[in-house]
């Protein structure tokens, strides 16, 4: 069970990293996810059925997602449509595009070679894990290097303070479009991998992916905290795997697959609340120690040595002030 959620989690990891880029770096909840995920899947499966190799098809799935993200980015920045609405518009539009790409609502693969078939003939779960590690590794390495360049710094600055970034010569619109583009490219890459793993592309496979993505981002951040970009990216992989594991456990408890969506939503609510509650408890505990020391008449020095309690902050707002 753990092994299979490990493999599945690794295939979902690009999606979580994609959501992380828009949600955490750019500070935008991007609903394009729900459209670009099946777009990647549809593109890959259709190309493979039409005789393209799995490599080309997967790459084109990524490019397809990039296009979707680019459209949302332009709607958001150039046409000044609020980001949430821009995402919804692209997502809705992509539904039709996906239907056209696939021709019908569900397209199964026949005998085509998927990416895992290029690996040595190990067990399927091992193949999935190895493929997941390779692809996630490439993604993390590329993003890590990107965030070390001036381009990556500009991207982070734009998400953090748009006014300041523009005043320092950064083309903020361009940066936001760029962020949407790579984010959705990664999300579509995930869609492409999942479709190959499942053996089919389905028009409805994008439903709920944004919730999965957000929940995984938050789960990852609960377990792995840090400011270093490598740690943060790794946290996303951890989040993706743990989230799959949670779902597998829920399935094991006898929940039917139809209930998975509501479970996803509940898990998201829980992981949003956990850090808030944890901070509240911590604050209360620190306060108690502080107050008891005050009443004991302990003088300044000791009181000063105690860390000031941290104030509770919503996890959705991140650590921003």
């Amino acid at each position: 069970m753990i092994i299979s959620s490990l493999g599945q989690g690794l295939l979902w990891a690009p999606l979580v990293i994609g959501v992380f880029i828009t949600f955490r770096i750019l500070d935008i909840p991007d609903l394009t996810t729900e459209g670009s995920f099946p777009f990647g899947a549809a593109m890959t499966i259709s190309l493979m059925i039409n005789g393209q190799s799995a490599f080309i098809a997967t790459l084109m799935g990524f490019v397809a997602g990039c296009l979707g993200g680019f459209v949302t980015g332009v709607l958001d920045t150039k046409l000044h449509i609020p980001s949430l609405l821009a995402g919804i518009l692209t997502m809705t539009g992509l539904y039709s595009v996906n239907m056209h790409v696939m021709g019908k609502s569900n397209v199964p693969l026949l005998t085509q070679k998927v990416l895992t078939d290029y690996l040595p003939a190990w067990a399927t779960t091992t193949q999935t894990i190895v493929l997941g590690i390779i692809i996630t590794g490439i993604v993390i390495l590329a993003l890590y290097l990107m965030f070390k360049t001036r381009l990556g710094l500009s991207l982070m600055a734009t998400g953090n303070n748009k006014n300041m970034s523009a005043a320092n010569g950064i083309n903020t619109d361009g940066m936001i479009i760029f962020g949407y583009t790579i984010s959705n490219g990664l999300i579509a890459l995930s869609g492409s991998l999942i479709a190959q793993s499942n053996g089919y592309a389905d028009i409805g496979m994008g439903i709920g992916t944004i919730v999965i993505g957000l929940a995984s981002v938050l789960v990852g951040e609960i377990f792995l905290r840090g400011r270093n970009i490598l740690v943060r990216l790794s946290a996303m992989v951890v989040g993706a795997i743990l989230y799959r594991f949670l779902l597998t456990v829920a399935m094991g408890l006898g929940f039917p697959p139809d209930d998975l969506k509501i479970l996803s939503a509940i898990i998201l609510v829980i992981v949003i609340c956990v850090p808030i509650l944890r901070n509240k408890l911590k604050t209360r505990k620190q306060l108690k120690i502080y107050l008891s020391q005050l009443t004991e008449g302990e003088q300044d020095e000791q009181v000063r040595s105690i860390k000031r309690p941290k104030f509770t902050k919503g996890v959705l707002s991140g650590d921003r002030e």
Partner: protein
Amino acid sequence: MFFPGTENERHILKNVSLKVYDGDFISVIGNNGAGKSTLLNTIAGTLSADAGSINLENKNVIKKSVSYRSRWMSRVFQDPKMGTAGELSVAENLVLAESHVNTISLKWYNKKGQWEKFQELLKPLDMGLENRLKTQVKYLSGGQRQALSLLMATLSKPKLLLLDEHTAALDPKTSRDVMDLTDEIVNREKLTTMMITHKMSDALKYGNRLIMVQDGQITLDVSGEDKMKLDSEELVGMFDN
């Protein structure tokens, strides 16, 4: 720099024509709603003028974006949080400010030699920032953030430095420190500066030129000797007209 007549529902800047000479340090004063900030925002490109022209070194930049204009000008905002990126470290903020071109270059930004340079830069502030290069800016105090903003704005040696009431949100002492720092940097780097202020004393003490904006027009423009002769009573009196 010229702003011939702008047209708008609420006519803010009307027939404003201002020529800023190289090396000028202009204090801009005026009552609330007079259009001082509008003037600065129009120059910086945050607001676009409906008509007229803004010439930067003989180039009309009226249609250009904020980021394009930032190649020649820098800005310090009133709110200390506006001028710095809170999530990024002190060093990262300085890297951003150092160059306003090549912002999407694929070169590594974290070079070893830079750190010593940044430490040298931060030392004169006397705020201990030189040892906190890795600290996220959001953990700094308002005064520290504003001093950093100022340093960042002058780091790229802009042709024009815009200060929008940059000491208004600070306590009296920090405000004075930041003002002294401003004067020192501007004089050392010989920066052309426009500074909005509500403090008459600052407006008189600093700079070689003073303009008063009232009802969207420049009603007073004095420099050099004439500015020296002004006193704050006289200036406050002019607000009423």
